[in-house]
């Protein structure tokens, strides 16, 4: 029962934080709140038994991402959104409502939260749970699946990170800000 | 030489010529030498082929099969032979003329001009010899593209505008309607190969057949049926040899030729006749004949008047095709040749006038006749041939068309034919009459004006003579037309 209480409370906090992030215009505050958001969602992962995910989300979302965002606003020196808070953009709102409705519609059929009879729990997953130790000798099933059964995904994942590194180096890897005047040739009045 | 080789040679020779022309671009004399040699060779080849064809030999060539069931292939049949003959013979004349014309006016980009010209001829040959709608369409489009630089030759704003109209209508109708027609044909009949008796016969509901025919009729924009005739007057911005090529030899004839081919080998004359496929459409041709003539009367620009005259004359051929009776088809086929010779004469004359006097308007021609007798003499002959008076070749085609109409019993069409002949008289004859008998507005004597350069005169003389000759010896063309129409 306490699980559910924690679960629901945290989710509510998440929702409040998210709304606040949408509404607030001070970027610094937004990033702070994003840190909270990450922590909260990581805690949600803990509550929902996804310990590895929680581990990673905390380290990445609340750690690296936040630090990078801070670095960005330090570099851009813009700490406030220019767009007025009160303005509601109707078209995006409509799109979002539509998407949300579609998703809610999609969840109507979905097995209830925690249902052990859900199809997702019945097909591939039990195999991993049963065979992980005999086949790989690794008690942490997530590691077994991650590194062995779906090791290729993880290889891809490492390459994703590597790509990000290459990309960041390409973009802002130069130690000094470039001041090449000719870079914007003819670009000013491009229609 | 084997038949296939001959065929291939006819197609490739102009292309080789084009390459040679580009290669020799820096030396005008060599370049024009190459042009003339190629043109002569092609003319000789075409005549040889015609001779052997009439002797009963089969000419066929398979190149490739891009899509299963649809090949790029060539096969010569009577109608194509006729067209090729006209194109091949007139190219050399036009070349001679063009050399004089271009030199006389000191035009820019002559190399491009001659090269594109040669490519256009190659394409026209491809159209003529094609064995199926696909191949025909391929060369039909290539023809449009290769003539675009010719139309827009001068590079002025007007020329480009003309070129744009030219391209957009021709490509537009062909891709929008013609291609659709081909696709539907393929879809319905499972074949687009030209066949005696038509591939569609019996496979298509007559009501739909009418629609499909309409697709072809309008889709073949080169046939310049109203309302898709605008490109032709617009293309008048081109230099005169080009106009000659467009209106007499390659482009428009390729259009009506295609129409005839579709009529005869895709639909089949019998199918059309027995199901009255073209019943309503025929009036489009009739209307075009009359309206174009009327518009022609109102034009003061000589070339524009000739252009509308062409529009009107092309519809004779369309009309003949849609009659689908044997005489009608013979008339239509022969008109391809007859009109070609006559109209090219007229254009040559118009060009000669321009080269010699820099005049483009009919109203300025008063009294010129005495200064340029040969030119206006040729013009008169061409005009008479177009009107259809003996002793000129144009008479034959009108005769057979008339016969065709009588066979179907649609006498109103006959009236149209008569009326249009009268209109022809009304818009063509005043021109030489003005030139010979009127005094120029200012009363000048044009002593300073001389005839155009010799090569131009030579070309005019050749074609006007041919007009007369064709009255007396229409045989080769008649034979081919007769064969095409399914005669013995």
């Amino acid at each position: 029962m306490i699980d559910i209480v924690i679960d629901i409370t945290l989710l509510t906090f998440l929702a409040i934080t998210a709304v606040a992030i949408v509404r607030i215009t001070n970027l610094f505050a937004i990033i702070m709140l994003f840190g909270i958001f990450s922590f909260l969602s990581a805690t949600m992962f803990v509550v929902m038994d996804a310990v590895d995910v929680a581990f990673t989300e905390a380290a990445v979302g609340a750690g690296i991402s936040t630090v990078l965002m801070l670095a960005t606003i330090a570099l851009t020196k813009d700490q406030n959104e220019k767009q007025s808070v009160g303005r509601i953009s109707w078209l995006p709102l409509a799109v979002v409502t539509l998407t949300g409705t579609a998703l809610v519609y999609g969840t109507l059929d979905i097995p209830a939260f925690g249902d052990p009879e859900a199809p997702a729990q019945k097909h591939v997953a039990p195999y991993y749970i049963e065979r992980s130790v005999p086949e790989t000798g690794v008690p942490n099933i997530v590691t077994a699946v991650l590194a062995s059964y779906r090791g290729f995904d993880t290889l891809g994942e490492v390459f994703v990170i590597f790509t990000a590194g290459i990309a960041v180096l390409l973009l802002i890897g130069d130690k000094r800000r470039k001041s090449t005047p000719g870079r914007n040739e003819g670009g000013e009045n491009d229609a | 030489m084997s038949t296939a080789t001959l065929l291939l040679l006819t197609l490739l020779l102009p292309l080789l010529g084009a390459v040679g022309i580009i290669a020799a671009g820096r030396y005008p004399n060599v370049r024009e030498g190459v042009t003339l040699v190629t043109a002569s060779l092609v003319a000789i080849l075409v005549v040889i082929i015609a001779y052997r064809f009439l002797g009963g030999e089969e000419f066929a060539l398979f190149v490739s099969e891009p899509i299963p069931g649809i090949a790029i292939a060539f096969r010569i049949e009577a109608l194509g032979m006729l067209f090729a003959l006209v194109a091949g013979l007139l190219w050399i004349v036009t070349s001679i003329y063009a050399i004089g014309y271009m030199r006389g006016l000191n035009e820019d980009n002559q190399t491009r001009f001659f090269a594109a010209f040669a490519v256009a001829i190659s394409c026209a040959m491809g159209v003529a010899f094609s064995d199926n709608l696909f191949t025909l369409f391929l060369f039909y489009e290539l023809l449009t593209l290769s003539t675009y630089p010719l139309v827009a030759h001068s590079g002025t704003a007007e020329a480009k505008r003309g070129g744009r109209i030219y391209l957009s209508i021709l490509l537009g109708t062909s891709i929008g309607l013609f291609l659709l027609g081909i696709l539907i044909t393929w879809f319905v009949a499972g074949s687009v190969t030209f066949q005696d008796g038509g591939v569609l016969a019996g496979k298509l509901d007559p009501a739909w057949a009418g629609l499909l025919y309409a697709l072809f009729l309008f889709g073949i924009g080169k046939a310049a049926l109203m309302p898709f005739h605008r490109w032709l007057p617009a293309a008048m911005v081109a230099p005169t040899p080009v106009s000659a090529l467009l209106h007499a030899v390659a482009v428009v004839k390729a259009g009506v030729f295609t129409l005839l081919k579709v009529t005869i080998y895709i639909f089949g004359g019998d199918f059309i006749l027995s199901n009255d496929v073209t019943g309503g459409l025929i009036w489009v041709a009739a209307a075009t004949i009359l309206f174009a003539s009327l518009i022609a009367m109102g034009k003061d620009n000589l070339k524009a008047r000739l252009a509308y005259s062409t529009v009107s004359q092309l519809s004779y051929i369309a009309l003949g095709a849609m009659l689908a009776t044997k005489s009608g088809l013979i008339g239509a086929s022969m008109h391809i040749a007859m009109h070609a010779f006559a109209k090219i004469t007229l254009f040559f004359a118009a060009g000669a006038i321009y080269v010699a006097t820099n005049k483009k308007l009919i109203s300025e021609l008063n009294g010129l006749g005495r200064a340029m007798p040969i030119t206006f003499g040729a013009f008169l002959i061409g005009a008479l041939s177009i009107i259809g008076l003996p002793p000129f070749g144009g008479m034959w085609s009108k005769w057979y068309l008339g016969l065709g109409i009588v066979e179907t019993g649609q006498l109103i069409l006959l009236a149209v034919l008569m009326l249009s002949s009268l209109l022809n008289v009304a818009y063509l004859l005043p021109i030489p009459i003005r030139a010979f008998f009127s005094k120029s507005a200012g009363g000048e004597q044009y002593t300073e004006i001389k005839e155009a350069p010799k090569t131009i005169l030579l070309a005019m003389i050749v074609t006007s003579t041919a007009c007369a000759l064709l009255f007396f010896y229409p045989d080769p063309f008649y034979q081919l037309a007769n064969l095409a129409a399914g005669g013995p």
Partner: protein
Amino acid sequence: MQDHLSLLLVVIPLVAAPVAAVLPQGRLPWFVALMVTSACATLAGMQLWAVVHDGVISYELGGWAPPWGIEYRIDVVNAFVALIVSGIAAITLPYALLSVEKEIPDHQIPLFYSAFLLCFAGLLGITQTGDIFNLFVFLEISSLSSYALISLGRRRQALTSAYQYLIMGTLGATFFLIGVGLIYAQTGTLNMMDLAERLPGVSGLKTIHTGFAFIMIGFALKLALFPLHLWLPNAYTYAPSVITVFLASTATKVALYVMVRILFTVFPNGFVTATPAADLFVLSGIAGILSASVYAIYQVDVKRLLAYSSVAQIGYMALGIGFASAMGVTAAIIHLFNHALMKGALFMAVGAIIYRIGACRMENIEGLGRQMPWTFGAIVIGGLSLIGVPGTAGFISKWYLVLAALEQQAWISVVVILTGSLLAMVYMGKVIEALYFKPVTETNIVVKEAPMLLLTPTWILVIANIYFGLDAEFTVGVAEHAARALGVVAK
């Protein structure tokens, strides 16, 4: 070797990427990339051959049997797409050498080629995999690297375009992820073949429908399907020439492949036609062809014009898919191939112009046709192919598309396809007119023809355009085979 063919195709470029990243400046990274792409093109060719002759290849990564492990599953469809991707890459690289040296600062070149290889490997990974989540991972590899590569364009708009693409692309990928999640919730598997087995039993569920919709929208974003195409014109316009060439002729193709795969293999037959998806595809195709073509006409930047044209061409493929018939899918696959050829050639030619004069706006290129005849020739022939003039590859595509439309009695589509060709004629006409019929501007009078190293790859593609226009046996044969392999059946 033979056994690991389909795997090596992905792993070789993947491994080469980090190597290229640490190589010293100079031409070595380029050489590595060239070798890798050539090797991949060869392997892809072998793979296609193997698949055509011996049937489907299944490769179990990590030695775990699917659906527990990840599987590479190659049939004619992905073998064909893999060949297109690696072939185009192999042709692009010789072209890249000079173009990149001109457009990218020296010290970034090793990283550039590394990112290029990653993008390449990502695209191949998407193509080869038989696991829907593995697909997502490789999708991200290719996407991330392409964002970076696009941002390297010389004008500052390259940055905003890349950003825009990043946002749209990530939204797309996330939508895809949502869709996969929903489907997983009801099937418990991620393997495509396994999904295909299990989906018929649950295909009536709302969750599955929503998941399907999200996957489709996600990939429609990646594919730049109208009206989700907004990122594409900018991205293609401002990216470095080489990247435009590469992405235009591969990235959207791969996205299209994924759509086809999911529509016809993963989801049961008839699912597409039972949902509004098929109609939406047709609708979007029609709208895309018309509006993007019209937009293209009004562009003054040639690259942008071609980019809009790409959106229109994607519309054609969408039409083909939307017909949901064997013929339609065949047509879409044929066009997928042909469009890669024609857009590759066109963007290469435009890149050659940029190489010489640094820009490609209409007013910059006036009269260049006479200074750069070979480049001009490539643009003309590429343009004709785009229009669909017979004798070029484009015609074959149009031919099959119209036939497919006729088969469905979809008259409006027929009209739209042909209208699209006409509009293509108008916009290509504009380019050609500017190149050739405008007098040479003073600055352009000294311009020389592009170097051989740029021209040769361009003309290889140009000739391919003509070759596959005259002999479509290979394309059509493979495409039909592919449509069969996908299991598309007529309505």
